[in-house]
């Protein structure tokens, strides 16, 4: 059969790309099985009136009721607003803090390795442990924060951190920033180290001060890294569940209820999996649009 009609000669230049397809096939099939299929099921469920979903049950009639209900629900728009607020506040704070600490530990000073370790440490702490630590810090009756604020005279009576909508939002945002900024810092540090020293040396010769070097050398060279990092942080906030769920459960008064918390609550709290799928699909679309917008604003070399 060698050299027969059905032999596949991958050595032939015209068929060399086939090898690529063959090698990629297992990964593509795996991705299709674990990402695309559930996605398809989710989209399909969002167009059915389903309580608890089962794959072996016959398909329910097609309906757009879930989406109609979703877009007229004040809870959905509130969840969108809370998610947006968290994205803007947490992403900005993470980027500022991450960039600041990266610039700091990029300098040569005694104990730099230790400083780098401390900067990166929150990233290594599991999310649930971080949440437990912050839950204790902000405990209304026995927490550290109330004690510090009272001792410093900032407040004259304790703040009920998890019973006040504004305070609860602040606690969630603070925890997310603490957990998220090291990632930005590590990425920025890698970016900073890739900028040739010659640029800074030349700028110094030309009389540029530290601020001018930051604006005219560091900033443009870091833009590609910062762009990708910002998108990744933003997507992390979109999908993050455990920090909010363990700290506040989305409350009080839905002040910390993001789209991911709302999806979970509808699916597993109220057993409305069709409606929850609709929220999930809309969240996915928002994520794709937001990432696309961010990417389109990024420089070409991103």
């Amino acid at each position: 059969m060698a050299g027969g009609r059905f032999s596949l000669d991958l050595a032939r230049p015209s068929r060399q790309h086939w090898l690529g397809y063959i090698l990629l096939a297992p990964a593509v099939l795996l991705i299709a099985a674990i990402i695309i299929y559930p996605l398809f099921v989710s989209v399909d469920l969002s167009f059915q009136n389903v309580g608890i979903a089962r794959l072996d049950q016959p398909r329910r009639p097609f309906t757009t009721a879930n989406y109609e209900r979703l877009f007229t629900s004040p809870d959905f728009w509130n969840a969108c607003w809370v998610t947006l607020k968290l994205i803007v506040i947490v992403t900005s704070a993470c980027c500022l803090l991450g960039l600041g600490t990266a610039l700091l530990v990029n300098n040569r000073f005694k104990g730099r390795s230790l400083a780098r370790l401390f900067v990166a440490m929150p990233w290594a702490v599991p999310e649930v442990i971080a949440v437990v630590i912050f839950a204790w810090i902000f405990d209304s009756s026995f927490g550290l924060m109330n004690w510090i604020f009272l001792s410093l005279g900032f407040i004259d009576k304790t703040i009920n951190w998890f019973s006040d909508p504004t305070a609860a939002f602040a606690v969630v945002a603070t925890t997310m920033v603490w957990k998220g900024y090291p990632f930005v810092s590590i990425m920025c540090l890698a970016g900073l180290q890739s900028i040739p020293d010659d640029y800074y040396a030349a700028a110094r010769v030309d009389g540029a001060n530290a601020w001018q070097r930051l604006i005219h050398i560091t900033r443009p060279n870091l833009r590609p890294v910062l762009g990708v990092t910002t998108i990744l942080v933003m997507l992390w906030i979109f999908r993050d569940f455990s920090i909010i769920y363990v700290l506040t459960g989305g409350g009080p008064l839905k002040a910390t209820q993001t789209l991911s918390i709302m999806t979970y609550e509808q699916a597993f709290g109220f057993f409305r999996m069709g409606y929850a799928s609709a929220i999930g699909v809309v969240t996915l679309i928002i994520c794709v649009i937001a990432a696309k917008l961010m990417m389109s604003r990024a420089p070409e070399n991103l």
Partner: protein
Amino acid sequence: MRNSLKSWVLGGVAALALSTVALPALAQTKTLKFVSWQKDERGVGDWWASVIKEFETKNPGVKVEWTKVERGAYADTMTTLFAGGKPPEIVHLASFEFQKFADQGWLEDLSPYIKSSGLNLDGWAGQSSCQWKGKPVCIMMLYFGNIFAYNEEMLKKEGIAPPTNWAEYVAAARKLTKDTNGDGIPDQFGTGHETKGGGGQYLSELMNYTLDAGGRWTDNNGKVTINTPQMIEGLARWKEVVKNSLTPRDLTAGETRQMFADGRIAMKLDGPWLYPIILRGKAKDQIKIAAPPFNPPLGGSSNILGMASEIPADTKKLVWDFIAIATSDKFQTDYATLAASTPPSPRAKTDGAKAATPHFDLLVQTAQAASKAGVDRIPKGLEIQYNEFAKMIMEESQRMIIQDLDPKAVAATMQAKAEAIQKQ
């Protein structure tokens, strides 16, 4: 060479002989899955272990695979298992969540098994709640009444007698809430309630006050009855306790119980499960248990045992054997002793429990008082929508406290929202 060949032949014969004996034995091993949140709970966990041991002794070759899932993740896990077509054969659920599973047809109708085994469920506490669409889909494992525990030393220090009604209770709670170390932060509380966490527990805590004020979420026909003077009074009481921080804020039920057991909270209304926690606390010698100052006491069904419907017939028979052991007179008697709780069976002997748990008679009395008054944590007519209803009540109560709203207006809002939930 000859010896070597001989040893190979002998070895082969021995292996064959062993396989003919061992393989059928291996093939006979059957496993029943049993998922529960009570596995590590002192008392009741030990009781489940004894039921499993008895079942495995009576059914050689059948093992019970007992897995613990935390209460917080329980509904999600069970839903996923059932929806994925791999439910645990022995189904253990909270009494406020089994309705969703029964409504999907995932719980077996137990009436043929009850009939054939002759299990007498007359007088079985809370069993009526297990009826779903006219069929018994579960067996109630606990119907409880709340007890009142107080720190005698803290009350004596303030010259307060144990309260016997709402007015005395709230006056005592006010007096006992204080900052004992002068750092400006109250560190001792009159009473303790969960105000953070799920809607179900929040609803239960709030009901201590609404029931005493004469309020009910729904009437016997399932009609929503929140906008009534009694419910408004109950909501006003809850607001008074929480807004004035007579209870520590933002704690879970477990944390509140531990604070009480450690002597940071003076008075606590809770179910029979509080006692094992008290015994492990720093203030165990200061704590006394009495009848609740509220009438009727909060009570109700707690957890159920059932059978997955989509399992083979021979497995169903085994699951029923397990249920039969758990509901037998002997094990119901053991339940009272080991779990220090009121067994649902009227035939359980409680002499041993009375010796082990000094306040056992009180547990029985409060359970009976709650049962007589028709009290349950799950409002009639809102069983399927319970989670959503409880969440709504929690949010509106939080709004009342945060925005300092009039309980009258809050009751009207709750009424409208509950009716809307019921109509879905």
